């Protein structure tokens, strides 16, 4: 009986690991522009905005994709022109490593606190 339970759990988790690759968004422009801040609007993404700036930006992204540029090359190009501020998804660098790591460190720290509090036996 016990083995059967274990068996089901193992199958369940191996299915969990059947993990498909990252999304192949049909519409690359939408995907990229959702990740860009419309610099002249208040708190809108380029995707959501109908301003001239945002419309031109979307056209440009389309052009770049047609030229065969990858998503990352486009981000790189835009940050060179407009700075890191334009991208909603900050990449990991010396300015942002604390941003990404601090929550994870706190999570581990919390886990340790709980383990210390709880008696195993």
């Amino acid at each position, binding site marked *: *009986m016990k083995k*059967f*339970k274990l068996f*089901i*759990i193992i*199958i*369940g988790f191996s*299915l*969990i690991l*059947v*993990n*498909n*690759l*990252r*999304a*192949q968004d049909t519409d690359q422009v939408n995907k990229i522009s*959702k*990740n860009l*801040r419309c610099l002249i609007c*208040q*708190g*809108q*993404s380029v995707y*959501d905005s*109908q301003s*001239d700036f945002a419309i031109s930006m979307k056209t440009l992204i389309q052009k770049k994709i047609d030229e065969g540029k990858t998503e990352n090359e486009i981000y790189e190009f835009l940050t060179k022109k407009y*700075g*890191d*501020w*334009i*991208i*909603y*998804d*900050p990449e990991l660098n010396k*300015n*942002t490593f*604390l*941003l*990404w790591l*601090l*929550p*994870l460190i*706190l*999570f581990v720290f*919390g*886990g340790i606190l*709980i383990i210390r*509090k*709880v*008696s*195993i*036996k």
Partner: protein
Amino acid sequence: MANQVGNYSLFIALIASIFLIFQSYRLTRNSSKNLDSKIFSVLSVQSLMVLISFISLVFAFIVSDFSNKTVYNNSHTTKPLFYKISGTWGNHEGSLLLWLLVLTFFLFIFLINSKNLPKKYRLLTLTFQEVIIFGFLLFILFTSNPFINLFPIPKEGTGLNPILQDPALALHPPILYIGYVGTSIIFSASLAALVCGNVNKVWASHIKKWIIISWIFLTIGIMLGSIWAYYELGWGGFWFWDPVENVSLMPWFCLTALLHTIVVLEKRNTFKSWTIILSITTFSLSMSGTFLVRSGILNSIHTFANDPSRGVFILCFLFFLIFLAIIIFFIYQKNISNSSIRTYLISKETAMLVNNWFMMFFLSVVLIGTVYPILLEVINGSKISIGPPFYQKLILPFLIPFLLFMAIGPNLKWVKDHINKIKLEQPIFLFISILISYLFTTSYGVSYLFSVPMFGLGFFLFFLTIRDFFSGKSTLSQKIAHFGFSLFILSILFNGVLAKEYSSNMKVGDERKFMNKIIKFENLKITQELNYQSLTGEFNISDDRGNLNLKPEIRIYNQPKTLTSEADIISTIYSDNFLVFNVLKDDGYYNVRYQHKPLMIWIWLSVILIFVGGILGYFKKK
């Protein structure tokens, strides 16, 4: 006239506040058993004065008394009465007055409802709460006085920002404030309990009511704000991870953690220090929210007009309260004997701790994401944006274990349970859920990261919470709230994965094909309303199953001159059809955006279920 009345009554309230702080503190040494009747009468006077000043502001708004600067800046004679009233708290000064009103009334109710608790504890709560009231009174009177006279009296006001002229947003601030202010009572009461050393089961069951109340209002408040963003901002999303939204979410995480911990304290008389720390943190986060929104330090769609002197005041006051709390905590921590009650690995206590663990993690993600850009800019001048992808990347993977624990946890027993007793049905449910999720994701071609386990555990929680209705050991309120949460997660996941949208530039008479639907721009009507001009587009969306007529609007408000887009949404229990259009520069063409959002309404319904669970918890008999 109303200005003077409002102003002077605030000064009287300030004096009452000073009296109460000293008198109540002095009386804590007095050995008499009952509260001094003087305290009660002064407190009543104070509440009455705040009420009078609030009413006089509402009155000034209703009669459009433009000798009042706040009214002049935020109202207009052509505005409908409902928005004249809601305009009272639709601005910085008025919203603070509303905050103060709730603050004093909550204190009043607290004192009436705590008659069977020790006198010293009640007096100390009163002292702490009066310190907060005093701070707010100073803030209102000296940096954001809503009763400033204008002379000569202007004939007409400048109007309320049209995107705020909306029923959901008229109710959103007061409800959210009740939630925020509720946390102030929890804060004061926890500090008082700490000083008195009565952090115990009795105190827990008394303060639990306040926690539930604050939690319910905070939940409803966040939901209303989100509904408003969904149909008014016109982008079709319901949560943008905008800093101002995050600010209301942070105390919610903390309060949810507290809601679970307080049950442990009530039942098992343990986790005392942790409860106090959570109470302090919750209120600090509510206050930080006020600071971040009001000071203009954030860059967001929602921020009110900013004024640095206000920011400095709130910041100092906020840190004064935080430091006060920390100092009191360290001095009196020894008062709460952490009894030698052991916590076993497999037990409900641990499950609650795990809940807290995840809540604190989610909180830290949102907090760090919101505050980090401010810190970075000050420290080395570089400016970064933190948007939805950051939050999704850090929160989504952690939802998977969170959902698993949430499904299993509630069925564990207090004190000590055994792993062997986990029934066979749980792994079977898990297996079925993963299988459904796998079939669903492959057949719909969903290939987001972690989509199989996300959906799988969403279903797992869903099945287990349904099963718990028949066999679970926990309370009904917990069952409903957890079931609501599973529904919430599932509807968000399905909505996120299956939503489709289409955007195009169209003029009247145009037709566009999208999936199996035909979108037709049939007509455009121009009408003149009381305080705006309206362009109503008539669209028809047809597919093989039927016809939908959608009539989105573009409103051109006259005071102040602003364009807003009002989406038209047809909701059914299966999906929402969302259509919005915008003016383009070229004449005749409009940008039309159509969205098909499956299960959208279930997001709201599930949140309603969640707080209905809370309401049941409040009324539960002991």
